């Protein structure tokens, strides 16, 4: 019982209001947002510390006891996600300072009124994300999803270029349909159980007679969260929309939004829908395989860095739900570890591609070249997350793949493990494709104007705030890679909580049950 647990939800709301109050004063807005993001990150570390030392934290909003009121629950998985969202929030707050500076070339900087809406919306979106991570009530989760979605709709269309509007339209449509599935699932579940509190649901669900109907409902949730997480047959909106907005927005989306879907899948398919694991988790297993393969094949065929990264994101999603599908403590721990590694690395890759674009004025790897000679430091910054995604030891991606695949082999899922390993090779292939084309080969247009721009120096004011977060995130990647043990211990602890739902149930309902 600690009120502090709702701080990650309330604080972004406060920051959203403050940044809104400094409308039209860009400098103030930046300073307010940056300091807010820093405090937010400290709060998130505080939450993790609290949960790790004192166990699962629960607060009943309004003092209504557990199954009746709305509970906020911070268990290990939630607090890991909160910490990750805090880190990403801070990185992007830093990055935006340089990124949103007036540029002499390029077309996607926000103009006029739009630039003032950017920070408030970003903060409100983080409120929605954190709310979804912390809530212990299924309908409340729907509400947080909508908070997150409506601000992401506006962020995605901010600036209003032709491509953006088109991408947003696809994104909005698919998300509204997925919200409808969520509502249907919630409704049907309530009609069978008479409760919406997730811990109480987990308690009641095994006693229901009509278990077959329950499987149907669980698939409703699989479809709904799967659309948000971009799993195999439901991912087409992602590569159609994620490459359209300004890169700092795309980085947050790629880092956090799909992971909200993964988090929800992990939550409901370990806590509530575990009555028919042989059926539901086998479906998830096959979906995971297809997601990995289709995502990486898509990435190979692209030549726009952002689109390569979008498809790469889909293929990585496959690994995360692969761990969920195998459904052993080691596999779940592997999934959680993968999420930690992935959010950091994927955001980092998008941020680096933004720097490349600011220097060269293009995202197309065919038009890029010669970056290694001109900017060796930037090249190293790209190489770290790129190799990490591909799973090269000793970077974080290696360990995350190792844990997931080891767990799968222990359960004799040989075919799908081979697929996962092969997809790792493909990942290396298309990451090296970016490396060879954009960094290694000679610049195809060596005398272009952009090379004479004043931002030659990466440590000038135009760039320094874009470089710092990239260095920070790359540093985290290396640290996770070299010292994986503390991170894996936390992941294992969350897996222990997820695989033994009674811990969660007891923490939430403990005071009302005997």
């Amino acid at each position, binding site marked *: 019982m600690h009120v502090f647990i709702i701080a990650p939800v309330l604080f972004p709301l406060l920051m959203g209001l403050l940044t809104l109050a400094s409308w039209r004063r860009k400098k103030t807005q930046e300073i307010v947002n940056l300091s807010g993001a820093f405090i937010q990150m400290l709060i998130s570390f505080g939450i993790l510390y609290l949960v790790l030392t004192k166990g699962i934290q629960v607060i009943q909003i309004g003092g209504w006891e557990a199954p009746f009121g709305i509970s906020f629950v911070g268990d290990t998985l939630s607090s890991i996600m909160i910490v990750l969202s805090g880190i990403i929030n801070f990185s992007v707050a830093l990055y935006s300072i340089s990124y949103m500076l007036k540029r002499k070339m390029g077309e996607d900087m926000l103009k006029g009124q739009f630039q003032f809406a950017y920070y408030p919306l970003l903060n409100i979106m983080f409120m929605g994300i954190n709310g979804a991570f912390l809530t212990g009530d299924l309908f409340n989760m729907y509400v947080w999803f909508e908070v997150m979605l409506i601000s992401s*709709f*506006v962020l995605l269309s901010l600036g*209003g270029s032709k491509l953006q509007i*088109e991408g947003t339209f696809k994104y909005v449509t698919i998300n*509204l349909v997925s919200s*409808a599935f969520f509502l249907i699932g919630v409704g049907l579940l309530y009609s069978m159980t008479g409760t919406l509190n997730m811990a109480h649901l987990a308690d009641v669900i095994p006693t229901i007679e009509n278990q077959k109907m329950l499987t149907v409902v669980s698939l409703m949730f699989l479809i709904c969260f799967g659309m948000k997480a971009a799993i195999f047959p439901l991912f087409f909106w992602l590569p159609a929309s994620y490459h359209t907005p300004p890169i700092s927005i795309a980085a947050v989306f790629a880092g956090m939004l799909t992971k909200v879907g993964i988090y929800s899948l992990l939550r409901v398919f370990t806590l509530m829908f575990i009555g028919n694991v042989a059926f539901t988790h086998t479906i998830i297993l096959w979906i995971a395989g297809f997601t990995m393969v289709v995502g990486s094949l898509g990435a190979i065929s692209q030549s726009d860095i952002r689109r390569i990264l979008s498809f790469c994101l889909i293929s990585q999603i496959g690994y995360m739900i692969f761990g969920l599908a195998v459904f052993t403590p080691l596999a779940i721990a592997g999934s959680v570890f993968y999420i930690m590694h992935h959010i950091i690395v994927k955001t980092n890759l998008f941020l680096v591609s933004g720097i490349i674009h600011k220097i060269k004025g293009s995202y197309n790897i065919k038009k890029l070249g010669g970056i290694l000679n001109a900017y060796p430091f930037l090249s190293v910054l790209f190489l770290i997350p790129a190799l990490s995604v591909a799973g090269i030891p000793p970077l974080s991606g290696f360990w995350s793949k190792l844990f997931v695949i080891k767990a799968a082999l222990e359960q004799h899922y040989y075919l799908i493990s081979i697929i996962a390993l092969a997809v790792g090779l493909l990942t290396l292939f298309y990451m090296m494709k970016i490396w060879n084309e954009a960094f290694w080969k000679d610049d195809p247009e060596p005398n272009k104007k952009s090379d004479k721009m004043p931002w030659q120096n990466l440590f000038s004011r135009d760039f320094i705030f874009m470089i710092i977060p990239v260095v920070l995130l790359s540093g985290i990647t290396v640290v996770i890679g070299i010292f994986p043990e503390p991170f894996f211990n936390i992941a294992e602890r969350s897996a222990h909580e997820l695989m033994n739902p009674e811990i969660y149930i007891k923490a939430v309902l403990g005071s009302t049950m005997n």
Partner: protein
Amino acid sequence: MESLLAILIGGLFAAAVYMLLRRSIIKLIIGLILISHACNLLIFTIGGVIRGKAPLIEEGEKQITGIVADPLPQALILTAIVIGFGVIAFTIVLLEQVYKTTGINDTDDLVNSDK
């Protein structure tokens, strides 16, 4: 009454899916509106449909007497309606923007961001 509502909800879902699969953007939005209404009605029906009895505890009683509708789903759809209203309003404005910037009203032609 419940079975009548069930048929209505089924019809709404069918119409919504049909509209969602049409190529015209405006019909797609009608489909989205219908699907959100169908969901709201579904949740409404779950609470039970009982006439003329409020779920209030009479004076002097400790609990509700007689059969009443479950008030919670009604509270849920109030939330869902408000959210749905805002989101649909945004979508309609977005539709206007799509038409203004691209001049397209056919979902089959909206392929530029897929290239």
